[in-house]
Structures are given as C-alpha cells and as structure tokens.
C-alpha cells in the first residue's frame, strides 16, 4: 500500500500531462475554440459599431457561445479521451495504473477548456467595460456590474469544466454506443426549456446547471422588456462547482478497487454542500423577478 501511495502521485502527474496533451490534440476542441474566437471577435466588433439608437447588452448575453463550444463539445472530447484511456489500459493488460488514477488524470485535463474559457471571459469583460450595455438591458437597480459579471462567469466559464466532467461521468458509468450523443441532445433539450423563458420554472430552474439569470423575457411577444430572475448567482457558482467536484468523485467511485468507503463519505459531504448552496441560491439574492424600469424594443 505504501508503494502504491508513493508511486501514485508522480504517475498522476505524468498521466495528467499526457491527457492534457491529448485534449489539446482533439480536433473538436480546436473546432469549438476557433468558432468561439470568431464569435467573440464578431461580438466585439458588433458592440463597437452599434448605433446610438441600438439596444445592445454588449457581452452580457454571449455566454451561450463558450457553453456550447467548450462545454457541449467538451463533453464529447472527454468521453473520447476516456475511451482512449480505457483502450490503452486494456491493451497494456495487467497495469500498475489503477482506474481511479486515470480518471483523476482525465479530470485534470479539464484545465484546457477552462483556461480557454477564462480567456474568453477576459475578452468578454473587456467588451463589457469598453462598450457597456445600453440602459434598457442590464444592469439595473438593485444589482450592478458585479452581478452581471458573476452570471457571465457562471454561464461561460463553469460549463467548460462541467461539460467535460459530465463526459467523463458518462464514459465511466454508461460506456454504451450512442449514449454520449443522446446525452448531449437531452442536456440541450432540458437546458433550453429551463433557460428561464417559462414563468413556472423561475424559482427552481437554478437546480439545473445552466440557466439564464436575466434577459429580454417576453421578447417573442414583442415587448423586449428586460427582467432579472430571483436568486443569488454568487451562491449558484458555489453550487455549480460543488456539482463538478461531485461528478469527479462519482467518476472515481466507478473503480471497484478504490477506497469506496472514504469516497462515499466525500460524495455525501460534497452532495450536502451542493444542496446547501442550492437552497441558499434560491433563498438569497433577488427575492423575486425584477423588471428593468427602462423599457425598449429588442434590436
């Protein structure tokens, strides 16, 4: 056991570096990143060239791009890397590297999409500060720029971590043909229904890991009136990070030779933290949906 303990950490570092290289070699990652760069540049140019009468939220509503291009595609990339890792382990026969170490190394590879998302976030913040949103969008009392920037972080950066971890989880527990693409469709279907357009979901929609916190709700009816939804996005970030940690732990738990008793304890504690953060997300922050006092048609 002592030998395993002493050899696992260096092995993890070696494997993590290898999985990071594999992630960087994934064509789908580069496809998503290239598209994200194009969309971000187009967003900046669009904000720079807007007219005085335009109604634009600047980068405050651009989070769908990193979420889809790094999060959704990251789910697929990570599922592929997990299968590749399993194939290599199977080909090697009886190996010294346990599954839990390989899982942890794969989880470490999420540094690639997260770093990319942080770069996007920096560009989005620059766009937001240089070309601020028009007053009929966000922010509006009682919340300020900090609220908007937190939401942008939660919806733009955290999915780059959560998407690949979901891919890891699926590849570990449901390694069947067709599961990953079907999971993508189901995730998008639920996400789009819970994005906050339906009033019945406003209070509890935050249980789902991707939902809008503000926007031109009712824009399809032609009003284009901006609204902020109840809850605290700051605590929601804590909830999302707890979910990510939970995902990694459950993926490691798949290894039958892991210390499952200790893992169960950790999983229970992390689930408890997530539950508390979720409840606080619902209870704190904006007590109810708040309309922007300035109305304006959507551009």
């Amino acid at each position, binding site marked *: 056991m002592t030998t395993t303990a002493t050899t696992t950490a260096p092995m993890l570092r070696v494997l993590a570096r290898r999985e990071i290289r594999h992630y960087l070699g994934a064509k*789908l990652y580069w*496809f*998503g990143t290239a*598209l994200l760069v*194009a*969309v971000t540049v*187009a967003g900046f140019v669009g904000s720079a060239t807007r007219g005085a009468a335009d109604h634009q939220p600047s980068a405050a509503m651009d989070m*769908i*791009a990193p*979420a*889809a*291009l790094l999060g*959704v*595609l990251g*789910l*697929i990339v990570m*599922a*592929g890397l997990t299968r590749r890792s399993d194939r290599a382990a199977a080909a090697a026969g009886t190996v010294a590297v346990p599954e839990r170490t390989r899982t942890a190394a794969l989880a470490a590879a999420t540094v690639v999409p997260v770093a990319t998302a942080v770069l996007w976030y920096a560009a989005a913040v620059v766009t937001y500060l240089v070309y601020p949103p028009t007053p009929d969008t966000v922010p509006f009392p009682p919340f300020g720029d900090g609220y908007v920037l937190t939401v942008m972080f939660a919806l733009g950066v955290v999915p780059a971590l959560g998407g690949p971890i979901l891919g890891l989880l699926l590849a570990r527990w449901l390694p069947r*043909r*067709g599961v*990953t*693409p*079907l999971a*993508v*469709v*189901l995730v*998008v*279907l639920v996400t*789009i*229904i819970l*994005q906050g*357009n339906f009033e019945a979901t406003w209070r509890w929609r935050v249980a789902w890991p991707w939902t809008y916190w503000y926007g031109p709700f009712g*824009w*399809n009816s032609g009003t284009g009136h901006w609204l902020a939804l109840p809850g605290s996005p700051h605590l929601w970030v804590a909830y999302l990070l707890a979910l990510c940690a939970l995902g990694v732990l459950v993926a490691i738990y798949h290894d039958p030779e892991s210390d499952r008793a200790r893992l169960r304890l950790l999983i229970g504690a992390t689930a408890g933290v997530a539950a508390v953060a979720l409840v606080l997300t619902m209870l704190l922050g904006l007590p109810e949906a708040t309309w922007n006092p300035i109305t304006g048609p959507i551009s």
Partner: protein
Amino acid sequence: MLRSSMLHHAARAVPWPLVAAASLLITGLLAAVRYDSWTLWPLQGTAVGLLAGAVGWCLDEPAAAVVDPAPRGLAWRTLARTAGIAPLLAAWCAAVWWARADLYGHPWAVLVQGFAAATVATAWVTRRRAAGEATPGQRWAIVVVPVTTAWALVRPVEEHLPVFPYGYGDAFGDWTISSAGWAVTGLTAALMLAATLIRDGRPWYRPRAGRPSGISGSGHRDQRRDQPVLDRGGG
C-alpha cells in the same frame, strides 16, 4: 423494394433500440419547437443533427470482418439497412408535418434539411465502410450531433451562412439560400453515395448459387489499396 432476406438481415443488423430512441427524441424535439418556436428554435437544428447521427448508427457494421468478404455487396447491405433509416425519416416527416404551422412558413425547407442531412450521413458512413472501417457511424454521430447542436445554439455568421435559419429571415438567415445550400449538399452526397456503391463492384442483389460473385468469382479487389477485400479486416 426490400426483399425478405434484406428485412431478415436488417432485423438483426440495425440497432433498433437506438433507432427507437432517436425517433422518439426527434419527435419530442420538434414537439417542443411546436410548443414555442420563438424560444425553443435551436432544438430544430439539434433534431437535424440527431437524425444524421442516427442514420450513421444504422449503417455501422461491427461484424465487418465477416460481412466484407461475403458475396453480398456493400450496396445490398446498405439497401437492407435502409429498413432502419426508414422509421427515422418517417418520424422526421411526421414531426415536421405536425409542427408545420410553427415553422415560420417553411416546413418544406425544414423537411429538406432532414433529408439532406440523412443523405450526407449515408454517403459519408458508406464511404468509410467501403474503405474498411467497421463502425464509422459511431464516430460520425459523436461529432455531428454535438456540432450541429452547438451550431444551432450559437448560430455563428447566420447572415452569411444560414445553416438553420430562424424566424422570418432577415438578420436570422435567408431561408431560400439555406434551402438551396441544403439541396445542393444533399444532391452532392447522393452522387458520392452512388459512386461509392458503384466502385464496390458487387451487385445490389444477392448473387445466386453457382453464379460467380464479385469476390469469389471475379476476384474483386479493393480499388483503394489494391489488396484483396478479404485482407481488409474489421477495423
């Protein structure tokens, strides 16, 4: 017309649970679009991607090492596997027809998107099958479903490249240009499919006993590698 031997082949070869799940999901996605097309429109593009991915699954041949050298050619086997593609296209047609009132007056354009995507899937996967890859559909679905989903959500450069137009056009993409693009893509894919099947050389029908078949009788060789088909392996 599918012969009974083809149906027998399809009954065992097509991944029916996946076909059923995809058909249900496609219907569900377009039902959601019908419920609130303004809000849930990206699901229309997701449905097109799922249809293309599911068509790819139908054409996979995990037992390629066994069926590739058999007398039944790629055309015969592809035709047999259309028994799995048919319910997917039927689900697509039914769902589009059901949601037609909420497709911004362009149900035919949406229908064409699905058929073109299915044709592209068939052409690409069959081409990879002819090259000796056993399950290219799996690889295809893993890429095409998330990419179309991401594209439908983000809709980059929609003014210039209206893959999934939205609403009544204008800044959200021109429906006519989009339909023309999908139609040309679908027709090109159909031509590529025909070329792949013709190049395979073996007939679409089952060779009769005693008659020389493409492989055993005519010494069919893999055009790409100039090696006997028997050597191709399953991938």
